[in-house]
């Protein structure tokens, strides 16, 4: 028997994140590191548990090994439950054949059984692409109060950027009358955050219809939402205020990391009442040596700093050798910087090793892009990696 759950979350974590190039060669986008000790997926998972949503299906597809291992039994997020908890939902083989997830809507459709087991009345659809802290319980309250069939979380974006998003046009009561995906001439600044709450019965109905239409691309934004609007279902926009960032590009991932720095950071992760949980690897405390210079930086467990670190975010177990300089950079878990090496305006993925006296990138003022080095790559002593270079294989 399964205990009934009012709301079940479905987290779409199958995306490749191809615009992150070197960072997603070996892993799916939701498991890309962020902010030193986190991975992108820690944000929706932590938001779920902090909002009281304790049943989460994680839909994986692209290179799921690291993601599966990372989520494990859900213990770090308190999602190791007897009833509910977190469950990985991979594509599977059915009687009528096996299918990869063909689109976001199709992925949910293939897993309706999971939702129905808990007899959930509402389904929260999330994606593993964004950095934000949000109370889904408030959004669910809004969905119930307005008796909506579908509620879409929206955030105000500058009008000049609106054409990059799915834009909702709303009436005064918050109901949506028009949805346009990446419009050339946007008539609203309310951008969809990719967070939906559906009343289960409606969701099931429209997913089923969609599954029978061979011309459909089985996508929420392209098919399900427009179809529901066209059919006159009650669609509400839920306005969210606060930090929200799509980290789908190298530039935005870098910026989102930098947003953590400074006296009044745009995003604070030290809020006691809304902790972001992550899986730990039992690293010792960080050590800053007598020769080190550390300014405006975020540094975490296991780091050993003998050189200079400025305006940078360091992951767990990062080593910065004597005389080395790290500026305006994001160094993920296990990166090692050799003595007298220079790393400026760069993102170094996990376990990258930079040889002695090597240089990566150029100072931010004159560089024409962020230098990126993919996971596990070693840059030999004295080698030079140009600004804006993208190193995914040697």
């Amino acid at each position, binding site marked *: 028997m399964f205990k009934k759950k009012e709301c079940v979350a479905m987290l779409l974590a199958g995306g490749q994140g191809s615009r992150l190039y070197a960072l997603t060669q070996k892993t799916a986008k939701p498991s890309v590191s962020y902010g030193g000790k986190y991975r992108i997926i820690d944000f929706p998972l932590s938001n779920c548990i902090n909002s009281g949503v304790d049943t989460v299906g994680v839909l994986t597809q692209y290179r799921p090994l690291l993601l599966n291992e990372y989520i494990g039994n859900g213990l770090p997020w308190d999602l190791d439950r007897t009833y509910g908890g977190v469950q990985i939902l991979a594509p599977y083989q059915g009687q009528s054949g096996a299918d990869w997830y063909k689109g976001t809507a199709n992925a949910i459709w293939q897993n309706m059984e999971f939702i129905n087991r808990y007899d959930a009345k509402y389904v929260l659809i999330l994606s593993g692409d964004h950095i934000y802290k949000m109370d889904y319980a408030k959004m669910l309250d809004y969905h119930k109060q307005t008796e909506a069939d579908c509620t879409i979380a929206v955030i105000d974006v500058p009008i000049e950027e609106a054409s990059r998003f799915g834009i909702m046009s709303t009436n005064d009561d918050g109901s949506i009358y028009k949805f346009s995906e990446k419009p050339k001439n946007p008539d609203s600044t309310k951008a969809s955050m990719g967070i939906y709450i559906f009343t289960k019965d409606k969701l099931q109905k429209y997913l089923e219809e969609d599954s029978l239409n061979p011309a459909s691309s089985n996508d929420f934004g392209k098919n399900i939402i427009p179809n529901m609007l066209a059919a006159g279902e009650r669609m509400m926009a839920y306005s969210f205020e606060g930090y929200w960032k799509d980290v789908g590009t190298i530039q935005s991932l870098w910026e989102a990391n930098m947003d953590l720095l400074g006296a009044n950071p745009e995003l604070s992760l030290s809020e006691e009442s809304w902790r972001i949980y992550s899986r730990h690897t039992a690293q010792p405390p960080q050590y*800053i040596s007598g020769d080190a210079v550390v300014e405006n930086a975020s540094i975490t467990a296991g780091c050993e700093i003998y050189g200079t670190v400025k305006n940078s975010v360091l992951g767990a177990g990062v080593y910065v050798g004597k005389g080395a300089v790290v500026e305006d950079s994001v160094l993920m878990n296990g990166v090692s910087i050799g003595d007298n090496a220079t790393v400026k305006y760069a993102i170094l993925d996990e376990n990258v090793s930079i040889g002695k006296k090597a240089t990566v990138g150029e100072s931010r003022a004159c560089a024409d892009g962020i230098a990126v080095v993919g996971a596990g790559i070693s840059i030999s002593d004295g080698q030079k990696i140009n600004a804006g270079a993208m190193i995914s294989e040697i």
Partner: protein
Amino acid sequence: MTAAGLIFSNIHDQGIPEMTRRRTMASIPFGCRYRLIDFALSNMVNSDISTVGVITHYNYQSLMDHIGNGKDWDLARRSGGIKILPPYVTAYENSAAGKLYENRLEALMGSVNFINRCGADYIVLSDCDVIMNIDIGAVIDEHIRSGAYITLVAKKTEVKNSVFDQSAGVLTLDDAGRVTEVAYALPKRGSCYVNTNLMVVSRADLQNIISDSIAHGYKSFSRDIIAKQLKKKPIHAYVFDGFCACISSLENYFSTSMMLLQDNVRRDLFASPDRKIFTKIRNSAPTKYSHEANIKNSMIADGCIIEGTVENSIIFRGVHIGKGTVVKNSILLQDTYVGSGVTLNCVITDKNVVIKDERMLSGYETMPFFIGKGIMV
């Protein structure tokens, strides 16, 4: 071959009364994010010991809070796992005797059920005042190979500047490593082997020791068992050559903590990927350093916000250090709040201490200035 662990959480509490007023020796915070028991527990877990009893006496609320269900050490198990063994006082029988155990032997007598039921071939006994990262599996192997009755882990120490207390158990060894004599004072000069009180004994022998002690009214494990038996039965010493320190006073808590700033000490304690030291996870955000931060030779935990100068210090989780503040040679425990323009030198603050702006406080290396839990200065 299976082994179970037994940890004494309170023995030696009186050595450091400043920090054990409201906690056990086992739960004294150490090294930015650990509690002393983490070393004993992790050593056992890393040697595949998955049944561990923790003998408590008093003040064990903070210890229970720290251990929880044991999952941070992978000891939340259906079979075995971690068990807290509180003092065994029954409603009727103990009203006349009416007292808690007073020594190691009595503590073992109170834990006889755990020992009888754990089913392991060997029992590893450990105190909580010793800080080391040791492969206990190797100790058990040597115990079996040498055919010893009891194997004690010994550490060779120079008497001058020793990290051990003057009254530590000093072992005299023969060439084969058998203990020939036990004394209870460090010699005047030279070096000696000190008993760390980490020991291995077969469960059957331990059961016999306990029943003998009840029958004969023995009081002291070291005097009545080890010293008495060493002529008749082989008491063996396993000499450990890694870093090993023993917390026996506030002064020595201070100096031992400062040793963590030496590269070789940190390497010995923390660098082995197969023998990590585990502790309770707090999910703090990474530590943030401001533009004005100036950090030299310090060990710092996660969850801190540092806007001032920190030199030769140990900073625990969630500490805030304000602008223009200078912290030197100090140990600031969890959630200490230091305002701006403060100067601290050779100070130990317990948890949740608040130091207001512009205060100047200083102790000395051999007499660190201690500020108790939650005090506002």
